[in-house]
């Protein structure tokens, strides 16, 4: 029982990271109808930026984290203009390839600058954590869980309670109608990219002390986040969060009770099961094509 609870806690922590990255996927997908294959690299860039600022330049975290997030907001806008905007009217295949190209560019750019050796980032809290009964609550995982919940709440309030949030929602639901109502659609999409980029970077910052900071860290997280968003129901925000958490838990339990080397396979097996029996995911709706 104690072990199971411990695994549940760790699983939720890991799952929150998937959820954060999956949120970024879903937001961009809803705004542009395109899957951004460089989403994971936003996390990687966030983590590397922290290594540069807080390890190499010895800045304190309270300065390093805001600088990283602001830099990633700018980066998201640049990404939009370089990778998405020129191809926006040309269907999904060219955009997918373009984001794949961006992913190769980013990963190898960082590789050229930093070399293949994984970097480490010290934990944010000086105290390691605490125990309640048999369960040890690691401070970094607590932080990850807490920040994820905070972000989800803020995002909910932003989209439901602010005018800008509602404009962005309108854009994602019907671009043509939104532009007829005077909403600057292109600007809304830029903002979506900026926010998704910062959200990805935040996931990277949070996970950096737990994992090694490496060039490939983003793509492996992104694949699972993608799987999580399908399990949750593609294009659905709640689905992305629940899917991410569920995937983290399944993976952690699978690794503990079934097999460690096949740890990464559980996410995909869960995904295939879902696609066969509930393809619309947990929260998605079945839609019929109109003739």
């Amino acid at each position, binding site marked *: 029982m104690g072990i199971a609870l411990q695994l549940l806690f760790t699983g939720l922590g890991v799952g929150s990271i998937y959820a954060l990255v999956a949120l970024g996927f879903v937001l961009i997908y809803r705004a542009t109808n395109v*899957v951004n*294959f460089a989403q994971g690299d936003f996390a990687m860039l966030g983590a590397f930026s922290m290594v540069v600022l807080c390890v190499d330049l010895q800045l304190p975290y309270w300065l390093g984290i805001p600088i990283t997030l602001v830099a990633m907001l700018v980066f998201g806008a640049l990404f939009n203009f*370089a*990778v998405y905007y*020129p*191809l926006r009217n*040309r269907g999904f*295949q*060219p*955009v997918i*390839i*373009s984001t*794949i*190209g*961006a*992913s*190769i*560019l*980013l*990963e*190898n*750019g960082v*590789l*050229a600058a930093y070399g293949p050796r994984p970097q480490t980032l010290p934990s944010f809290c000086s105290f390691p954590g605490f125990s309640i009964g048999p369960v040890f609550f690691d401070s970094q995982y607590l932080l990850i869980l807490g920040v994820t919940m905070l972000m989800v709440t803020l995002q909910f309030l932003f989209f439901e309670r602010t005018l800008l949030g509602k404009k962005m929602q309108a854009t994602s639901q019907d671009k043509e109608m939104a532009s007829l109502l005077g909403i600057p659609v292109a600007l809304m999409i830029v903002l979506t990219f900026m926010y998704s980029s910062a959200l990805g970077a935040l996931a990277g910052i949070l996970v950096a002390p737990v994992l090694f900071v490496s060039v490939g860290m983003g*793509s492996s997280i992104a*694949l699972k986040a*993608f*799987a999580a968003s*399908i399990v949750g129901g*593609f294009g659905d925000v709640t689905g992305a969060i629940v899917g991410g958490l569920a995937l983290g838990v399944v993976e952690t339990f699978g690794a503990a009770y079934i097999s460690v*080397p*096949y740890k*990464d*396979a559980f996410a*995909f*097996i869960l*995904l*295939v099961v879902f*696609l*066969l029996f509930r*393809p619309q995911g947990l929260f998605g709706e079945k839609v*019929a*094509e109109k*003739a």
Partner: protein
Amino acid sequence: MIGIVPNAAHKPAAERRTNRGRGLLFVVTATMTVVAPLLLPMSAYYLNLLMQASTYAVAVLGLTIVLGYTGQINLAQAAFFGLGAYSVALGTVSFGLPFWPALFAGIGIASIAGVVLGLASLRLGGHYLAVVTISFQQILTLVLSNWISLTRGPDGIPGIARPIVFGFSFADSGAYLAFCVGVLWVVGICVGRLKHTKLGRAMQAVRDNELAAGVVGVDTYRTKVIAFTLCALLGGLGGGLFAGGFTYISPDQFSFAESVVFLTMALLGGVRSPCGTAVGTALLILLPEWLRFLKTTYLAVYGGAVILIMVFMPEGIWGFLQTLRRLLWPPAVLPFGQVAPLPLTTQVAREDDSIILQVNQLSKHFGGLKAVDEAELSVRRNTVHALVGPNGSGKTTLLNVLSGIYKPTKGRLFFEDQPVTRLLPHERTGRGIGRTFQNVRLFKSMSVLENTIIGAERPGNGVAVGSSGVEQHALAALDFVRLAEFRGVAVQSLSYGHQRLAEIARALAGSPKLLLLDEPGAGLNTVEKSELVQLLKRLKGHGLTILVIDHDMSLVEQVADRITVLNFGRCIADGPPAEVLRNPEVMTAYLGNAKPHVAT
């Protein structure tokens, strides 16, 4: 007008000469590329590079079929490639098999994996297919690295054998490369030919408009599964050749990153043509080599180059060259030949007015909305039956249930006294139900003739597959709607009115017994409308049964023998036009209630 039947035997001599010249050039080029590795002295480094390019290209040709022709995404081509490679490696090294049985085992295993994955996921398509293939890719990579007793894990497998044919050994790298290039040519030609076969056209129809493809008679699911299986098969073949070429393989050569590379090669070169595939593969293998002088940053520059190429050449390099060629040398207008009359279903006696289509208590609900509610309808042979009703009365929904796009919530359908309620769209088309769409759904990347040929190739049409008869039949249908002179034109460049006619021709080419027309007059101007009325009258004269939906009462009055009025999903009137149009309930439905509403 030149009186030439467009048939290969009657092509102008000049055209035949250029075709022969091209064929000769083609054979010479092919032979030279195969012989070159045998004769030219090459460094081991370049041999390896070319070996990689030729074996990869075979696998990328699989993507030409699945992505380029059929429009389905596959992010696991490296996994199928890996299945082929590991079969050859394990077969020759661990199980002591000769090269050939190992290669065929690899092709077989990859194809089986392709069939299973395709059957499981192709009903969904789109992003789901992307994710299923990624999952398969990831699981296979994990198995290759962790099932050490079988695959030898991350260390890989050295000492893979190369083939021997009639005592001639391909152990020499130059000879083996020549063999691979030969295979590549054969596969490339087959894939190029596929595009112009019935299967190839079906694939392109699925890509351009899956819904319309089903209605025209293409078994869309089967076509997608076949495409996916062929793709997996070519992946297995390429992988098997790759293993023989490098004599050493390890799991990291078949990772997700490699699948992405395969996909990029296909899209970069131009995914709709085998030539594009070759260009893309060669470029992406050579580009990193050319960029080596940049040392550590070369892969980053390569990523940037991919973005730039997509921005400036979204159709891929080959697609870009094709567009350029069309701009510089526009294609000559095809001579429009004499066309045999359309053999419509005249075998049915004109006076036969038995019921061809019977609809019993048919309902279609969307959640709480009753779009069609216990509708009753009988359509008699040799009549034009009109289905009218105000907007939102459920006409198009009813038509969609009739053609099998929607499954009815309740009720039964009989066509020629046979139950068809459970049949899929293409099966109904096979029985002889044709249709057009309210919003024109043509296969937009194909020519007018190709669109019509797909219609003529419907199952049960009685025209032999692959014969010039299909083309003649399609031409006859085009001539019937007066579009024969536009046969070589891309459907996209037709005017809206002509697009509607092309859609009718596509349905007519399938010689339907019952033709469903969904608002054929929508968006047409007065001249086009009167032409449409003439066309419908001519069709009626040929013994075709037509069920037409339209708003335009003058059009309906001119052509209909019988009218059924639908309101809120229910049939409220049925009978000859004069009688129905005077029905007070019908007038209320169209013009609103005459009685004033009294507020209480």
